[in-house]
């Protein structure tokens, strides 16, 4: 498998994500600077990592969504390459309109960092196949703006088409319908607030995040 992690100014989970993918899948991981206008050839996975791209000033992910590299990320997604946005990366994908909805300020108005239990709402995706029918997963969240919002019709559609991939079992941020992660209609673009990149070995409290990257590997 060949993967790329995009590095925006202010990304801070870029190394974590690289290490997680390497340890989980043995894949070769390229770090791609946001100003690049080309991506390495033959990628199976592109990850937009967590962090505070451009300081999250104005709105989380807004400026990153306009980065030069996003043109190629979008084009790759259109060609069917798997794209995953984790935390800040999810915010970027929403701002880039590559996923529907938006991430609002947490209902508690505070940054929240804690382990959360997730329901694997759709185990039959490019990102969850390796969960092998497991319905529960544990990862941590760490965000101030992870409160997923979309209008009711969009939410109905997401649910109806199996695009809700993860749900919180105990909602930490007020997200609509407990949504923790969604994917595009075509199923190759994933956005999620919890961090699989911090859950890739038992010492970190959970290795469930490794399954996510292994799922992509299996479908590659």
């Amino acid at each position, binding site marked *: 498998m060949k993967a790329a992690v995009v590095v925006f100014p202010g990304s801070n989970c870029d190394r974590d994500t690289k290490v997680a993918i390497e340890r989980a899948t043995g894949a070769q991981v390229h770090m791609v600077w946001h100003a690049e206008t080309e991506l390495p050839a033959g990628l199976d996975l592109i990850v937009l990592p967590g962090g505070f791209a451009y300081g999250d000033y*104005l709105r989380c992910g807004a*400026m990153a969504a*306009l980065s030069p590299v996003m043109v190629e990320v979008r084009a790759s997604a259109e060609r069917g390459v798997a794209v995953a946005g984790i935390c800040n990366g999810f915010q970027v994908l929403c701002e880039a309109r590559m996923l*529907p909805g*938006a991430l*609002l300020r947490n209902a508690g108005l505070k940054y929240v960092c804690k382990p959360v239990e997730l329901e694997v709402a759709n185990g039959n995706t490019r990102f969850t196949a390796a969960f092998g029918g497991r319905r529960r997963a544990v990862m941590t969240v760490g965000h101030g703006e992870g*409160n997923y919002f*979309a209008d009711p019709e969009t939410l109905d559609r997401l649910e109806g088409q199996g695009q809700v991939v993860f749900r919180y079992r105990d909602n930490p941020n007020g997200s609509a319908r407990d949504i923790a992660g969604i994917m595009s209609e075509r199923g190759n673009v994933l956005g999620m607030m919890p961090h699989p990149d911090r859950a890739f070995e038992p010492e970190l409290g959970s290795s469930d995040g490794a399954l996510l990257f292994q799922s992509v590997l299996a479908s590659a």
Partner: protein
Amino acid sequence: MKAIVHVFLKPGVLDVQGKAVESALHGLGWTGVEGVRIGRVIEFDIGGSDRAAAEAEIRAMCEKLLANTVIEAYRVDVGPAP
């Protein structure tokens, strides 16, 4: 010219911060306060002197960056340079 852009959450989007401020104001005894909404205001100077052209430019900036129209609505005011 001077541009003033107001950005607010759309009516259907719960303004949690506005709600929190409202209940804090109530708690401080200002119980008559209602319907608190919190938005962002962005001010800047923009060259040129054609007001209509400037306004069109600023709307383009809003669509592209200053507002997220999935959840936010914006209002643009252009005035003479301060």
